[in-house]
Structures are given as C-alpha cells and as structure tokens.
C-alpha cells in the first residue's frame, strides 16, 4: 500500500488529516481552557485565569453525590458484566454444543437495541422483581449494556489461546478449579481488562438508560441538568478533572494491556 499511495498528493492528504484531527480534538480541548476562566461565561478565550470553577465544581453537592453514585453504579455493573462475560466466553469458546452460534448472537444482541426502547421496557419489568428506579436498577441495566463488550473482548482473547496449556495443567495434577484460576484466567487477562474498562466507561457516561432507571441523580444527568439550567463553567471544570483521572488510568492500563498482548503464546 505504501509505495502505491506515497505518490498521492500527500500534502493535500496531510492537510486534510490535520483538519479532521482538529475537528476531533478541539471540542475536547476547549472545555479544559474554559475551566480555568475567572469570568462567568463560556466564551473562549477565557477572561483571566483562576481556579474558582474547580472549587465551585468540588463544592457542588449535587456533583459530588452524583459522582459517588455513578462510581458505585459503574463499579457494580462492571463486576456483574465481567463475571457474566467471562463465564459466557468460556462456554462459547471452550465447548462445542448445539445452539452455540445462536447463544453468541443473542448475547451480543443488546448492542443493537436502542437504549430508549430498553429503558422504557425495563420500567415495566422492574416491579416484577420488586425493584424501583434507583442504584440497583441502574446497575443492572448498565450491566446488560456492558456484557456484549466484555464478551467480545474475552472471545477475542480466547481466539489466540492454546487449550493445550489447560490440558497440561490438568495432566500435571492441578484440579479444574485451580486450572481455571491459575491457567485459563491469566491467559485471557488482557481481554478481560479491556472489556471491563469498556463496560466501566459505558456505565459512567450513560445517560439514555439512566433517565429511566435512576432517580435523575447520576453524575452525567446532574451535569446535563447543570448545563441546561445554569450554563456556567463548573461543568467544564468537573469534566477536566474527570478527564485527567481517566487519562491517568489509561496511561497505567494501556502499557499493561500491551505487555499482556506481548506475552500471549503463539
């Protein structure tokens, strides 16, 4: 491909690449700048520097309770989705059984379901299980959204996995439980982590399902309400803090994932 396309008008292509890169990055970079403004408006360039909006964001009780709630929901739903996703991944990739393709299709189907349809239907299902809108309902709903992501990552990890290692462990006298925890799981650790990360982010950022299942008190909903009623830079300040935290976490996780991928046999 290289030698062929190298002859394309590269300057034009590079300029275009720069333009699209700006289109992608600018809306994420500007809120960071506006977060440091000392004025009250959302205009760029900011009027003078200050940290007052960071203080305002951290002082906002609705943001802080929303943050705590969203972290609990994201953590819980990630655990549920990850456990279920790993088990389903084992079933689909390690066994041959009737209806296997169907099962896989069904477990990935929630990807195609509009959240608005799911949320509306869940409102009628919850009372069946004695549940009302709130933390548990939201956690369960988000777990369903995360499951297909965990499953597809785990399946991808299992596809370059050597079952002979498992047999060797069993032959050497480790029981099936020990083999599972000491051989099988560590070998697909990268896939599990990537899937869990996707499930966590999905839950933490979710709006369209939370409007039905929560009491309008998760962090994204609180930020949305703040934006619709006040439109001050505190949302930008909070977003900036969250961005720093999530990029920091990513810088730790990505090298680990790469290391795992490098270690993979075969």
């Amino acid at each position, binding site marked *: 491909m290289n030698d062929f396309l190298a002859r394309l008008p590269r300057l034009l292509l590079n300029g275009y690449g720069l333009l699209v890169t700006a289109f992608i990055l600018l809306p994420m970079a500007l809120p960071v700048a506006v977060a440091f403004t000392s004025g009250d408006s959302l205009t760029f360039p900011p009027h003078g520097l200050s940290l007052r909006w960071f203080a305002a964001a951290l002082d906002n009780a609705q943001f802080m309770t929303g943050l705590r709630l969203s972290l609990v929901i994201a953590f819980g739903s990630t655990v549920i989705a990850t456990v279920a996703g790993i088990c389903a991944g084992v079933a689909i990739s390690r066994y041959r059984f009737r209806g296997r393709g169907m099962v896989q299709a069904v477990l990935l189907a929630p990807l195609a379901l509009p959240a*608005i349809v799911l949320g509306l239907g869940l409102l009628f299902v919850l009372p069946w299980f004695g549940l009302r809108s709130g933390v548990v309902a939201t956690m369960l709903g988000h777990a369903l959204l995360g499951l297909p992501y965990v499953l597809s990552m785990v399946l991808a990890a299992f596809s370059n996995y050597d079952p002979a290692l498992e047999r060797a462990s069993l032959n050497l006298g480790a029981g099936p439980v020990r083999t599972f925890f000491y051989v099988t799981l560590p070998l697909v650790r990268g896939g599990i982590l990537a899937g869990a990360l996707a499930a966590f982010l999905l839950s933490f950022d979710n709006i369209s399902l939370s409007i039905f299942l929560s009491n309008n008190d998760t962090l994204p909903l609180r930020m949305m309400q703040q934006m619709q009623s006040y439109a001050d830079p505190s949302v930008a300040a909070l977003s900036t803090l969250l961005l720093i935290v999530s990029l920091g976490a990513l810088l730790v996780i990505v090298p680990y994932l790469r290391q795992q991928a490098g270690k993979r046999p075969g």
Partner: protein
Amino acid sequence: MRALRPWLWLLPAGCIVVPLFFLPVLFMIRNSFWRDDPVRFIVPDFTFANYITVLSDGYYLKVFGNSLALAALVALIALVMAYPYAQLITVASERTRLILLWVLCLPLYVSIIMRVFGWIIIIGDTGLLNQLLLKAGLVAKPVRILFEFEGMVIGMLHRYFPLMALPLLSSLQKIDPALLRGSVNLGAGRVRTWCCIVLPLSIPGAVAGTQLVFAGVLSDYVIPMLMGSTRYPTSAPTIFLEASTNASWAKAGAMGIVLLGLVLLINIAAGSLIARAAPWTGKA
C-alpha cells in the same frame, strides 16, 4: 452431565439477558398493543390503534422522517470524511499512525457531556466560530448553529465519527499491498487502482461503519436534547416525552417498536449488502 457444562457457564449471562433484555422487549411489544387510558394509564387490549397513529399521523411520521434524514446525512458525511482520514492512517509513518489512532480513540474515553460543552464554546451564538466570522466581517450578526439542525449534525458527527473510521480503517489495513503493486505494474493509474481495488475491498468496513453510525444517530437521545432544536424533533427524545410527560405508554411502546424495527432493518440490509458486495468475508 457433560452436555450440561456449557449451559452452566452460560447461566450468569442468562440471568442478565433474560430478565433485562428479553423481558423488556416483550413488555414493549405488549404495551404497543395495549391502550392508553386517561385514568388508569395503560389498560390491556389488543389493538393496532397505536401503530396506526404512529404510522399515519403527520407529527409522528415527521419525527421518524426527521430521524431517518438526520441519520442518513450524518452517515454520508462521516463516510466521506472518514475515507481519506483512514487512508492517511494506513500510509502514515509508524509514529504518525499511532498518534492518529490515539486521536481517533480519544473521544471514546471523554464524556459526551464534555464534548457537547466543547461544541457550545465553538458554535454557540457568542462562540469561537461566530467571533471569528464577525471579526472577519463575513457576517453582520451571529450565525445561529447551536440549537438548530446544523448544530445537531455537527454534534452527531463528532460523537459517531470514530464508529465509521475504525471499521473502515480495519478494512483498508487488510488489503494486500501486492494487489496494488500488481495493478500499477499492469498499467492501471492511481485513480483506477483506487476505484477498482481499494474501494471494492473496503466495502465491508464502509458498510459496517455506516450501519453503526446510522443506527446510533437514529436512536440518539443526548445530542438532540443538548444541541438540537424543538422545531426538528427526533425519535428518541419524542419517545421519552410521550412516555414521561404525556404518560402515553402504549403509544411510546409502538414508537419504540417501530424504532427497533428500523434498526433491525438497517442491520439486516447491511448484512446482506456485505454478503453480496464482499462475498469473501462470508464463512469459508
């Protein structure tokens, strides 16, 4: 006993998917045939009245038409925008390629609220773009983009662009360079090689991306709420409004099922299109 083992492994996922996926869809289907009642909210019935309303009333037809038009437009722009960008990534140096991939994936880690906030700063009435236009003397008064159809298009494009570019990129990267060398050696020009080899071989990625973007835009709730205009109602916010404010659960059910039907139709169409245009991707 052995035959049961995979099903035991599937039990946790089943405990999630059956009550939280199958049941809600069944309830939505049931609701869509029930009847809204001013006093008792929703009462058992078997009627097609909700579907008839949703599929014949001018307002609801307009809502679905709006959503379909918006989805088609955003998917088309994203496709045209993503082709050169993905192509650039395939030919760039190792370092540039890594940077561009990071750029493409970064929005997936940034909250949608923050991205919308960024667009408010850029395209709002007193935003960056209007400041520049006013200063340059190109316009006399600020151009209204945010809270209009245009603002919604921009927001959707930003939200769903990675979903178009990533599958397209993976398709382009799979093309064997030997084919391109062969084509050029046999005397085809660059344009002809691109049209006759690169384009057809990248169809699976283009179709997969289009399907993801189209379905995403069609059922998006956040962007229309935060960047759109009430004069251009789209499906998801309207369904939420029917259900929450108007308490028309049956009608909202019918609208939801129509939306689900549209999404399924798109997925099926995309699947058969890939099978036809790119038969080599099928199970061999």
